[in-house]
């Protein structure tokens, strides 16, 4: 995973990530067209496939709407890296196969426009090809879900032991 960083602050809530008026949409591609609209209406015009969102504390607080991580994923975002996550967002992202990585101080270490490379297996983030940051290890069970590409695939493959 490699792309450009788009940095936002602390407490980026689900209404920012996908405003409530779009909850009636069910096509992920349509949902993706409104990613981050509540805080940055220009986001969808500038994000490129592979790009990474950088957040501060408590990223994804608010509603249980899976449309929030769906919007990010289908806008092209390949990972969200934040100092901490709200619980439901964190689960929803992993269930969709979108890595949500906890990395202390990330909002100080990375700025918008930096090139960010994520090596999930090695637990590392490489910034502008030089600086290395470590993220908090993903719990093994969540790692299995991410490796399967999300909970749907995971359950399909592991129905017997679920």
């Amino acid at each position: 995973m490699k792309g450009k960083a788009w940095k936002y602050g602390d407490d980026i809530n689900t209404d920012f990530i996908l405003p409530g008026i779009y909850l009636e949409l069910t096509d992920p591609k349509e949902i993706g067209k409104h990613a981050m609209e509540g805080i940055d209406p220009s986001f969808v015009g500038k994000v490129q496939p592979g790009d990474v969102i950088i957040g501060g504390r408590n990223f994804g607080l608010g509603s249980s709407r899976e449309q929030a991580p769906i919007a990010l994923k289908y806008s092209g975002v390949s990972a969200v890296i934040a100092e901490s996550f709200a619980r439901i967002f964190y689960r929803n992202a992993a269930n969709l196969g979108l890595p949500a990585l906890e990395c202390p101080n990330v909002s100080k270490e990375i700025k918008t426009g930096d090139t960010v490379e994520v090596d999930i297996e090695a637990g590392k983030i490489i910034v502008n090809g030089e600086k290395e940051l470590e993220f908090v290890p993903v719990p093994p069970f969540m790692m299995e879900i991410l490796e399967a590409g999300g909970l749907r695939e995971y359950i399909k493959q592991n129905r017997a032991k679920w």
Partner: protein
Amino acid sequence: MSTIAQKILAKHAGLEEAIPGEIVKADIDFAFMPALTAALAFHAMYDMDIKKVFDPKKVTILLDHIAPATNITNATLHKECREIAKEQNLETFYDINSGVCHQIIPENGHVYPGMLMVGADSHTCTHGAFGAFTTGIGSTDMGAAIGTGKLWFKVPETIKIQAEGSLSRRVMSKDVILNAAKQLGADGATYCALEFRGSTISEMSIGARMTLCNMAIEVGGKAGICMPDQKTFKFLEGRVKNEYTPVYSDKDAVYKKTVEIDGMHLEPQVACPHAVDNVKPVTDVAGTKINQVFIGSCTNGRLEDLQVAADILEGEKISKDVRVITTPASPEVYKAANKAGIITALMDAGAVLCNPSCSVCFGGNHGILAPGEVSLSTSNRNFRGRQGSTEAFVYLSSPATAAASALYGVITDPREV
């Protein structure tokens, strides 16, 4: 040595004990979905190659967030939900005439002490008021839950909210939870369960306890729980059809921390824009001009909430500069309020009455705010843009503070009216 949250998870995972931090796979007793997340959950279940829900008696869909449909897109979504409910043979289905999901679920006997329930709505924590472990999940998790009857959970640590003393006149449970939010911060309980204890809580009605648990998610909580007691059993009598065994925290249960609230001296509280933990005593913000008051939602749309508003507004007129939108949380609430003369009192004072639904709460329905407008709302979230324009301002308060403020068009201390 376990809290109620640990005990319920252990029981449903077939374990002796559930240790905080550990991941368990647990059996789900009931799962519910509002329309806005239901279709996605079923798509997820079908993607898992599962065709039918694990038990049509234990799964329901409710059309509450936008009701009745306001445009063709959500009409189409409602239509899809009705079709899914039929095709899946769901025993219950709650159409647009039913009210807010978190009110319908207890009124219809779906929640009981000791159960494990999931809802595809973040405020599912409301139902912990009945001594249950109930938590909000996203659509893919819901697809797994309704398809397999199971879901994984990280066993949470528990934070105790210890509230002692009787609340003063016109101070409500909403003020208790707003004060707790101030003390904890918007991420202060991330991944934790909240347990509400103490004499303030025992004295509260079931509805008031629902308000507390409802807002557990606003501090990042996974669940908010009250110990079941006679009030709980009385409310559930005639509603819950199955047998149940109440569960209680052990005396020597271990808590992550304790937040203390002095119920007796608590003042009415107001959460200021744009964060739920930006809480001030009402006296600090009194005089702030408002354009709209909303009394309703799963937080404060129950009979006692409308009653306190009517007590304040009866025989009076709301300020000319304010519009008041009142939305009872369910038909049961609406009818009881009507019988008690509350609806007439509110309408005579100048309030608009809407049909039971989520209504103004989340900005997808009606009562949308224009740029620059200020709202005082009894709901649970005041994020920027939550009730319309991103340039509007939402304050949160109890129904007593909301009604008192409606009289003067400015935020007003309800103890003064």
